[in-house]
């Protein structure tokens, strides 16, 4: 057992011919992914495949490598070893195609504070080459219930509103894959409810990878689970899981949320 209370002895890696088939049809597939910053290795030999429409929940304590893994998939970092493909595209060959396929939602909204809600979405619509940008921006502002604040600069919006606008930003170009990095962090109960409602609404339209400390919410949404600890895969399971399935892995489950 490691410092985080995770039993690293139970790694159910997908292997063999079944894995090869799954990879070929996967929306995201990673093989032997590793990342080191200088001599410090933060991710080691991580492999997984998420089929189209799948939902992978990423668990692990702080510093486990969840954000690094998401940033590698999103092309924000270059892997030190291994490779990843998104929607059949390898970022080394066609990074723009990978970026077009990805919507990224993190606890940072990635919005310009001096621009209005509408100007921010219009900017990203142009950056992604969205067709009929004005109509798409209107549609998304209405969807996240921010139509009435469209002309307000982001600096004047509440944290919950900013996160809703960030969701609109992530969905703007209709990405096949949504990467969510602790999207509920810092939100109040109302904003969490709105975010969950939106996620449930779009659940069938995208492939998801969500890093979260909220085990209950993650298990409720996911059909695959990947647990990282110290940059290594501690558990990898497919199918609907309940908290009991993680009981053996997390000998101290509460540590996940407060590590």
């Amino acid at each position, binding site marked *: 057992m490691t410092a985080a209370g995770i039993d690293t002895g139970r790694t159910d890696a997908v292997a063999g011919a079944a894995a090869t088939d799954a990879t070929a049809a996967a929306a995201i597939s990673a093989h032997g992914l590793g990342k080191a910053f200088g001599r410090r290795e933060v991710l080691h030999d991580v492999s997984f495949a998420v089929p189209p429409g799948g939902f992978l929940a990423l668990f692990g304590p702080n510093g486990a490598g969840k954000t690094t893994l998401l940033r590698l998939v999103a*092309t924000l970092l270059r892997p030190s070893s291994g490779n990843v493909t998104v929607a059949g595209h390898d970022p080394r060959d066609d990074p*723009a195609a990978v970026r077009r396929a990805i919507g990224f939602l993190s606890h*940072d909204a*990635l919005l310009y504070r*001096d621009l209005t809600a509408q*100007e921010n979405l219009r*900017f990203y619509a142009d*950056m992604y080459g969205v067709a009929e940008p004005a109509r798409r921006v209107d549609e998304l502002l209405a969807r996240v219930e921010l139509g009435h604040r469209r002309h307000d600069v982001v600096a004047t919006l509440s944290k919950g509103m900013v996160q809703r606008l960030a969701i609109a930003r992530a969905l703007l170009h209709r990405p096949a894959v949504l990467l969510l990095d602790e999207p509920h962090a810092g939100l109040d109960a109302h904003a969490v409810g709105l975010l969950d409602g939106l996620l449930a609404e779009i659940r069938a339209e995208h492939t998801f990878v969500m890093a979260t400390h909220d085990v209950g919410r993650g298990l409720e949404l996911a059909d695959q689970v990947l647990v990282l600890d110290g940059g290594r895969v501690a558990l990898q399971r497919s199918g609907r899981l309940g908290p009991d399935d993680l009981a053996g892995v997390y000998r101290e489950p509460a540590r996940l949320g407060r590590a």
Partner: protein
Amino acid sequence: MGFRQYRAMVRKDLLSELRTRETVVAMFLFVVLAMVVFHYAFTVTGGGALSFYTGGMLWVVFVFGALLGLNRSFAHEKDERVLDGLLLCPVDRVTIFLAKMTGNLVFLGLIQIVAVPVFVLFFAPRGMAGHLAELLVLIVLADLGIAALGTLLATIAMQTRARDLLLPIVFLPLVIPLVIAAASGTSTLLSGGTGASGVLGRLVFLLVYDGVFLVLAYGTYDVAIGE
């Protein structure tokens, strides 16, 4: 799609600046204050051959004024943690460079529109009227070099903790050849002695300088703005 993205980035930077006025106001104040200081330092104390210094004065003011703007090139992306949003977009990194460089050129151009009349008012250079076209070409070429080099270095400096300190330390030594060419060319033109033929060598040098740093940025920007 490249031009649409380029236009969106330039528009966004100009709109942000129009709303906050953080960069241009600082640059403008610096330029005017520096001109006032030079005016009293050189004319009140009775400098005889003033035209000998005017080119240098003008370009020292422009370069340090530009530095203020360059330091703010990625302020919104870095301070508001929006850089990831930009890097996630399916945009060629060179397009980001060109858009940022255009923003820096616009800000530099804006302060020059104010600075040159102030300069004429304070120093009344006698040869200026006769060589306005040559002076304009020289300013455009030098501005392009400052913006190309400055944008590339501002991008690299942005990734470091001491970016406000690092940029001048790296930028100033590398911009010295450009300043020498631009300042001596400007002094030659302002003294009224020679026409375009007298500064042709400096114009060619500035053109080569611009080309070197544009090619360097084209080749390295993906790495410079990356991890």
